């Protein structure tokens, strides 16, 4: 198993003992009626295997983006445990990565995982050139030879079908679609095991969207990393993923093969989602 989440929750606010039982799917709300905290992710457990592609759908506010941020540790988890790729503690037991020392957490983020954000300002440093952004990830993974870094940056820049001559340009000088491509090059340059994508094509032109999705799919096939794709767009989920997970009010309401979920949704909320989108 590459990634395993067990009973993971995220509460924004003071939090109380009523937060989890009083919110989520059954309660049909995400705000705790007692302490008014927002429960963004409520007791979610899931597994991702090697080379597997998991889609996460749900309306805005359902907690799907927060779930990604918890896995990438952009946000601290309130409750629960996360295991990753057999990482063990000193006693040889599978180790909750949330309890790793900061340097090892950084290592996980630099080597093993990458995130592509909807907003390129979160994923790219606009003070660094396109090449510098890719180099940052390669450097973070420990490479200290300039020629190797430059060659790799150019290699991944080529992978995203950008002309080499533009590698020293700054992100501001690229279009929105190109900025997403640079994010992809940066994310993949450390050869991660797991790629997290948060609405990677939302807000882009439809034709640009399709090309970026094809690019991601081709690279995944070639490099063989696992992915978790968050999107409110069932078209994106259908195009990219094998398995799908449906979230509502922070809870997981349905999980299964993507085809099955889109063809024959079981949960009333998924049925609503599918009927309104297709």
């Amino acid at each position, binding site marked *: 198993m590459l990634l395993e989440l067990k009973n993971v929750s995220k509460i924004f606010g003071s939090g109380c003992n009523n937060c989890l039982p009083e919110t989520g799917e059954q309660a049909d709300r995400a705000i705790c009626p007692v302490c008014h905290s927002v429960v963004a992710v409520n007791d979610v457990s899931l597994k991702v295997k090697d080379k597997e592609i998991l889609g996460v759908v749900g309306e805005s506010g359902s907690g799907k983006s927060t779930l990604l941020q918890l896995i990438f540790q952009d946000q601290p988890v309130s409750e629960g445990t996360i295991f990753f790729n057999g990482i063990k503690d000193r006693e040889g037991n599978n180790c909750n990565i949330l309890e790793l020392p900061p340097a090892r957490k950084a290592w996980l983020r630099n080597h093993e995982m990458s995130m592509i954000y909807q907003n390129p300002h979160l994923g790219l440093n*606009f*003070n660094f050139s396109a090449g510098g952004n890719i180099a940052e990830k390669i450097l973070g993974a420990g490479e200290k030879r300039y020629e190797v870094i430059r060659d790799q940056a150019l290699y991944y820049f080529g992978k995203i079908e950008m002309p080499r001559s533009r590698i020293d340009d*700054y992100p*501001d000088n690229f279009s929105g679609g190109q900025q997403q491509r640079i994010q992809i090059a940066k994310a993949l340059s450390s050869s991660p095991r797991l790629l997290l994508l948060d609405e990677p094509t939302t807000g882009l032109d439809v034709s640009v969207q399709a090309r970026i999705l094809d690019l991601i799919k081709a690279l995944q096939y070639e490099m063989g990393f696992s992915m978790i794709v968050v999107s409110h767009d069932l078209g994106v989920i259908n195009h990219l993923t094998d398995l799908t997970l449906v979230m509502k009010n922070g809870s997981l309401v349905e999980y299964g093969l993507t085809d099955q979920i889109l063809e024959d949704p079981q949960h009333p909320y998924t049925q609503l989602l599918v009927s309104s989108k297709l």
Partner: protein
Amino acid sequence: MSYVAIKGGAEAIRYSKDFFHSELDDAKSISDQSLVKGLRYACDRVMSEGALYTETLAAEAIRKTGGDLLEAAFYVRAHRSTCQRIGSAEPIDTNQLRIKRRISSAFKDIKGGQILGPSCDYVIRLFSSLKSSDNTEAPLFEETDIPNIRVESALTPLRRDDRVAMLENEEQSPFDVTRSFPLPPYPRSAVMQIMARGETGSLLAFGYTSMRGYGDVHPTIGDLRLGEADILFTHPFTGNRVKIGSIRVTACETVGSFNPDPKDGKLRLAVGYGFCFGFNETKAISMSVLDLAMSHKGYSVGGQAIAANPEIVVHHVDAIESMGFTNHFKLPHYVTFQADLQVLNNARKNNDDR
């Protein structure tokens, strides 16, 4: 019975003003001469921030305000509004100053020499005097006429070598911020005028952000000069060029990092310029650092730094304005505050009901 202070303030204000003036009665006995000569740096600040070169009125303003230099500059600004404009003098070339002090930290020695002149840079700030080898009884400096030293900027050799980026002159004639206020993109001449009139402390604070890491790090002072500049004017009737006086000024050129020049892609050093009335090195240096940050891109690609943002600098360095606005909060605001309270009460009620 308590009383409600609604109106009837006229008398109270008169008493308050009288009280204020009587508190400063002792200032009346300070002569113009003591202020202009003895407290010359105070006068310089008042002229510079008041944006009018007038030593006697600066002295008068300092007396009237009990030494509150911002208030004094405010008097000078207000007076400035009453002055008729006869015409524009010729631009001053600060290469042509009669130098009293000129240093460059970029070079050990320079053409014309490092002229320390009068400076408190190396004064030990202790109330007592220290035992020291050079602490002799006789004064070292005898008042002599300042010789007519004129030297080119220490950066001129680098300019001749084409190692300094020259900004395009994009303006037909300089903007005049006293006649209209610029809209973005702000012409450089307008930004420079606003800074030359700006308050020392404000320029210093914004310039310091750039020096401390929020922008182009570590400027080098290429040429800092204090001296007298002749003011030349074309006589409106005779048409002759005449010298109508001379003023003491400070000018500073600061070197930043190098970058590809947008003109031709060649690598050149970026230079910023600062200038103000009177002797005020802190102000001229700060201004040159801000000009450097705004007019050139240094290490800080993207230009989000405070000091590189003309929008921030243009609207926040004039302390006559910021002081006025800050103090206006002492005016009654009970109508707006009562409205605020109503909104608070309604919101609380709404939340409590929920």
